[in-house]
């Protein structure tokens, strides 16, 4: 599955440029299904490879799924994960990992 490959690709590099990653999602809405799947299937792998890195998963009913990335000096960037599937969520994560702040 593409998401698994992407996650493997990220490996332990989450902390390369990033300081913190936040995932906002709704527990039941269809728009967050991809994000939910991503967490279910790949969070453990990601965290095991990056045990000290904060990946905050914050579920809240009715919110639009969003990926927030925090870089050094408080700079933050967000990507909407609305209606994305797990593969696209993984791609979004990859893009923030590789982006320079």
């Amino acid at each position, binding site marked *: 599955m593409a998401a698994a490959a992407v996650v493997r690709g990220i490996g332990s590099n989450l902390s390369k440029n990033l300081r*913190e990653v936040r995932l906002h999602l709704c527990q039941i809405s269809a728009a967050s299904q991809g994000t939910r799947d991503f967490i279910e299937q790949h969070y*453990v792998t990601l*965290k095991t490879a990056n045990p000290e890195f904060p*990946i905050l998963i914050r579920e*809240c*009913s009715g919110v639009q799924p969003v990926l927030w990335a925090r870089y050094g000096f*408080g700079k933050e960037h967000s990507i909407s994960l609305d209606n994305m599937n797990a593969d696209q969520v993984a791609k979004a994560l990859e893009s923030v990992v590789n982006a320079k702040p």
Partner: protein
Amino acid sequence: MLRLPAVSRALAVRTSARASSNMVEVFVDGKPVMVEPGTTVLQTCEKVGVQIPRFCYHDRLSVAGNCRMCLVEIEKAPKPVAACAMPVMKGWNILTNSEKTRKAREGVMEFLLSNHPLDCPICDQGGECDLQDQSMMFGADRSRFTEGKRAVEDKNIGPLIKTIMTRCIHCTRCVRFASEVAGVEDLGTTGRGNSMQIGTYVEKMFMSELSGNVIDLCPVGALTSKPYAFTTESIDVLDAVGSNIVVSTRGGEVMRILPRLNEDLLKYENILSPFTHTHLQGVQGSEVGAIAGGMVDAEALVALKDLLNRLDSDTLCTEEIFPMAGAGTDLRSNYLLNSRITGIEECDLMLLVGTNPRYEAPLFNARVRKSWLHNELQVAMVGHKVDLSYSYNHLGETTQVLQEIAAGTHPFCKVLAQAKKPVVVVGSSALQREDGAAIFKAVSTIAQNSRASSGVEEGWKVLNVLHRVASQVAALDLGYKRGVDAIRKNPPKVLFLLGADADCITRADLPKDSFIIYQGHHGDVGAVMADVILPGAAYTEKNGTYVNTEGRAQQTRVAVTAPGMAREDWKILRAISELAGVTLPYDTVDEVRRRLEEVSPNLVRYDDVEESNYFKQAHELSKAVNQSLLAAPLVPPQLTVKDFYMTDPISRASQTMAKCVKAATEGAASVDEPSIC
């Protein structure tokens, strides 16, 4: 003990559609109303909007029926009935304002007032006294009283409750409360008729963590608040339950706090004037760190985090430790009371690990006791043996026991496997230990195993963490690091203490020329070692967001303005950020809250609990933890009632709390009270 059998709980709102077919039709003053069978006359009238006067009835206590004030006439019945105790029958017509009902009320009121002293002008309860209100509404307008009144000696039941027993009307609410809710069977009635007295009979103090609640329960001025009486001070304890309160103020002082649903109380001395000076310009990265204490609101926490993040620092810690290993605080389900406080009433088996909920979260304990009394809840505990006000199965206090339960070899596992709705609660004090991660792993395993066993439904959550400090959950939601290890490893040159008074880091841990800034409202330890003190506002002085141990965000509102030059904490941080050259992008509370929403949207969902999931993932990660359990027994920090009163800087600064500790250790007579009438 004066008690009639409790009216069954069938009157609660949770009835299925099936029950509607056997609803009973009753008439209140001719108006028809449908109620479930078992509803009392008083509840039926309340449903229609008619309030029947009463003294002894309380909807949270068992029914006594001894004041007789609720007597109402039923059409065609020979005698009036006690509305609080009589279940309705089909076709009854309840006459709440007929001649007979009114005569009954006047008569009862006349009797109650015959022995009641003429203390209204000097009584603390004046203006909020049930007796005054009901005698105005339902009593006779003239007195026929020419005899002498009886008088009763005052009892000394502790430094919080002032007793003037002459005013007591023997409703026995305090007796039932002490016995049922607090679990402390100290209060009772002695004698009968004219010489009946309520008290402890022997010189005993009413020493319970819930003792102050009887002040609110007593309908007359017999039990009042000793600290509040005739003075301008009152006191408090704050825990992670986030109990709802109403704050009464006069002038600029918090006078007392009344419960909304539950209870808190408070007194304080504030740090009044700031020193304005900052070393934050020119500092970066790991040179600056921060520690957040136990009573900080979410707005201040996010402002501090943003400030430090902009200085390229991630060294933000909470005083309370929480295991970092495994999923840590990524998944909310790892650190919340997932079953919620209402879930306690549904569960059938509870396992407490390393916690003494009686003193760490008294209202949580009261719920457990309620469930133990009415819903046959079984409780088991791994930890030091303490008196919880209800009986429980003490499995032991060593970590060995915990390991055996996790491994499935302990006999208790069979009981756990059969439970339909088990709940495992681990106290945050147990997680503060060196082997906290291992304890969490064991508890997580136990929770997962019992979930997998027979009968537990899909949506039921087993794992719960009971926190002790009000700001911990919000800090974890925002992404703070837990425990001051990060600071110990890389001691910063500038340390920001936000209400941090637990003595986790001292000057000795920091480099020689380090600069410490303390911001808070009641500094004791933290303020003493700081170079700069910035006065902040206490929770009664600001609009702050706090998240309780269930994950429920709630707001405090301004009851008094902060004294001197104290300001709301986030505003101070915003000002500092401007001076330091990294201005924070918010100027109003709403903007701060929008920022809170960006970090963790549940923080602005006030009064709601957001479900959190991914237990399986959390468990998988915790399995990878390689720590082993230490042999030290699990002993919670608060064991007896004398440990209850001085747990945070606000209570440590309180005179009344000091009196409580003295009374608890040396007896009621040891506390010196000024004699007032």
